[in-house]
């Protein structure tokens, strides 16, 4: 049986051995962070960056407080508030007493344990997965965790980044380490050029439609191929962000010149000689020629169309010109049931086209699609149009920095003149904890990541899509193939 001992030597021989075999980037980052590997036990994995937010941390801080422990590495721990905060005037008191208490608790915990907090009044506050990269905290080769499943976002930089539960948040606070089994690896190869109107969001929605919401369970995805290389860092973040929606805890992309160009000069990025040395080190992270994956998936980007979901999980997606699937044509009985249940909730008929379907709300935001390039893309299409009279449109920038940059470019004016609401940053209607939510029965086209029942408000019904498709729906009032507007 397992012999749990305190005195164990690091297994250097194992590490040395693995150096000689071709390794994936996932193996390389993993190997360089194993502190201890006892037989039959999970590895003690060192964590370089621990991100904290108000919802999943209070019970973890309480845990270490009860044990009389400190935060082991406050210098590697960064907190912000994003989930339950209002996106209206931040100078007003928070109306929701419970949310206010949760936010006050994070302020108290951060002060007590010496953790850096980007709080309500910080110019660097924002969605945790937007500010990490933005501040240069997120770097290639790191291990990054957060009590949030969309931590997979940071994998876009070649970091091994994954979401953890609150017990594990407590473990990392106390020890800067986690007990982890090595995940399996899966190459997701995406080649080909995207057509006009087709974006990174459509790539990931198409992948999820192909593999389903459990297709990646137990694996880390490494995204490779010419289509991935052509993407900007913000587009790569959109893809890695939704890896978890396929069941993969993490998605990773080997760093390249796009990565280095994005990072250079950012507040916490290495500087001077340290920068040059870091880039050399980061370049060596790429998967070695001949390295083997446990599994492989491929997707042809050139064949993709704008995607939209029709159901109640992110794997229930179709090209926007396709029809809603018919449960009677599904062989597997439990899948048939799931599809019937989803269509009932969504109020959709089998075989129905989504094009022309009237919608009530458009939400542009979330850690998936709220960065400056998302807002630029949306504003460019929006210019000269008005939000349709039947539609309420919210544009919620991912961070206060994104908000300021967008305002400096005048993007907010385009949105506001069109009739959209321009908000302060936060998770907002993606998780509907802060009052930004759908009413029962409302239909939303949303750039966020989850269309689960009630996700955007109890009884609300979500169609996930790209920022382009969201704008097309906002200005026409119905689900629209954005390519028709691009041709105008």
């Amino acid at each position, binding site marked *: 049986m397992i012999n749990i001992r305190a005195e164990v030597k690091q297994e250097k021989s194992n590490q040395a051995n693995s150096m000689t075999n071709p390794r994936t980037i996932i193996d390389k980052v993993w190997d360089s962070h194993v502190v201890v590997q006892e037989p039959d*036990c999970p590895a003690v994995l060192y964590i370089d960056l621990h991100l904290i937010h108000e919802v999943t941390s209070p019970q973890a801080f309480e845990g270490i407080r009860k044990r009389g422990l400190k935060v082991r590495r406050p210098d590697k721990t960064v907190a912000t508030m994003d989930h339950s905060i209002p996106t209206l005037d931040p100078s007003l008191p928070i109306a929701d007493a419970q949310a206010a208490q949760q936010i006050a608790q994070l302020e108290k915990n951060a002060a007590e344990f010496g953790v850096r907090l980007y709080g309500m009044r910080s110019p660097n506050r924002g969605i945790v997965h937007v500010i990490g990269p933005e501040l240069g905290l997120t770097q290639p080769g790191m291990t990054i965790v957060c009590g949030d499943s969309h931590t997979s976002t940071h994998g876009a930089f070649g970091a091994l980044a994954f979401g953890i539960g609150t017990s594990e948040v407590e473990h990392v606070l106390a020890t800067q380490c986690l007990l982890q089994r090595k995940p399996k690896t899966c190459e997701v190869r995406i080649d080909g050029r995207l057509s006009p109107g087709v974006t990174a969001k459509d790539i990931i929605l198409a992948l999820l439609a192909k593999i389903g919401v459990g297709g990646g369970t137990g694996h880390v995805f490494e995204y490779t191929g010419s289509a991935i290389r052509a993407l900007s860092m913000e587009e790569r973040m959109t893809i890695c962000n939704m890896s978890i929606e396929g069941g993969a805890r993490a998605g990773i992309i080997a760093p390249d010149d796009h990565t280095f160009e994005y990072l250079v000069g950012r507040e916490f990025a290495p500087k001077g000689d340290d920068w040059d040395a870091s880039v050399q080190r980061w370049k060596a992270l790429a998967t070695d020629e001949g390295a083997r994956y446990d599994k492989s998936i491929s997707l042809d980007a050139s064949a993709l169309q704008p995607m939209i979901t029709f159901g109640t999980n992110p794997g229930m997606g179709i090209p926007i010109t396709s029809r809603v699937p018919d449960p009677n044509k599904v062989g597997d009985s439990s899948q048939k049931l799931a599809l019937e249940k989803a269509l009932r909730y969504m109020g959709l008929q089998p075989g129905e086209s989504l094009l022309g379907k009237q919608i009530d709300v458009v939400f542009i935001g979330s850690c998936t699609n709220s960065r400056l390039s998302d807002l630029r893309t949306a504003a460019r299409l929006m210019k000269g149009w008005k939000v349709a009279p039947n539609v309420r449109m919210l544009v919620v920038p991912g961070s206060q920095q994104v908000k300021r940059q967008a305002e400096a470019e005048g993007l907010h004016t385009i949105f506001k003149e069109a009739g959209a609401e321009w908000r302060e940053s936060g998770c907002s209607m993606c998780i509907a904890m802060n009052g930004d939510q759908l009413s029962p029965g409302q239909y939303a086209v949303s750039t966020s990541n989850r269309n689960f029942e009630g996700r955007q408000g109890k009884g609300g019904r979500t169609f996930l899509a790209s920022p382009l498709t969201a704008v097309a729906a906002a200005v026409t009032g119905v689900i629209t193939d954005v390519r028709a507007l691009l041709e105008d």
Partner: protein
Amino acid sequence: MSHFYKFTSRLAPLLVNDIDTDQIIPARFLKATDKSGMGDHLFADWRYQSDGRPNPTFSLNQEAYRGAEILLAGDNFGCGSSREHAAWALKAYGFRAIISTSFADIFKNNALKNGLLPIQVSAHVYRFLNEAVERNPRFEVHIDLDEQRISFGEGSSEIFPIDPFSKYCLLHGVDELGYLMKFQEQIENFEATH
């Protein structure tokens, strides 16, 4: 503690695939700063009508399944967010184990850390249990964590997989953070060269 992991219980069926953590506990109940009261919010949007009264069609509200300590759920249970509140809510409601054909990774970790046993069974056994509970809501299964065995019907059983370390911790009441804390010196050495 080990006696806890040898028990017999009826099953509460929730035969839906891909039950996500937003269904297990909707986000509006995540504003608490402690772990108390989560059981009341378990499956809130399925379990209660809009007037707040129990939804009579929801299986957990049916008399036959009251007191069942095992949830029988569809494939890929616990997908979606990392909220440990999902495990807390299931535990607080009174569940000691979930049986499914697969579990989402983060949920599985969270469950194991809270003494909630994720029992992965074959599609064949899942179908069998499904039909058995449909025929007889009082149908019982026996769980033995030490043997990793789920027994049911007349002499039928199946071995279920579980991470050996998690099993050891559950059976012997090992505190995982306590275990990690023993590696202080190795962590310091690692940090010195990392």
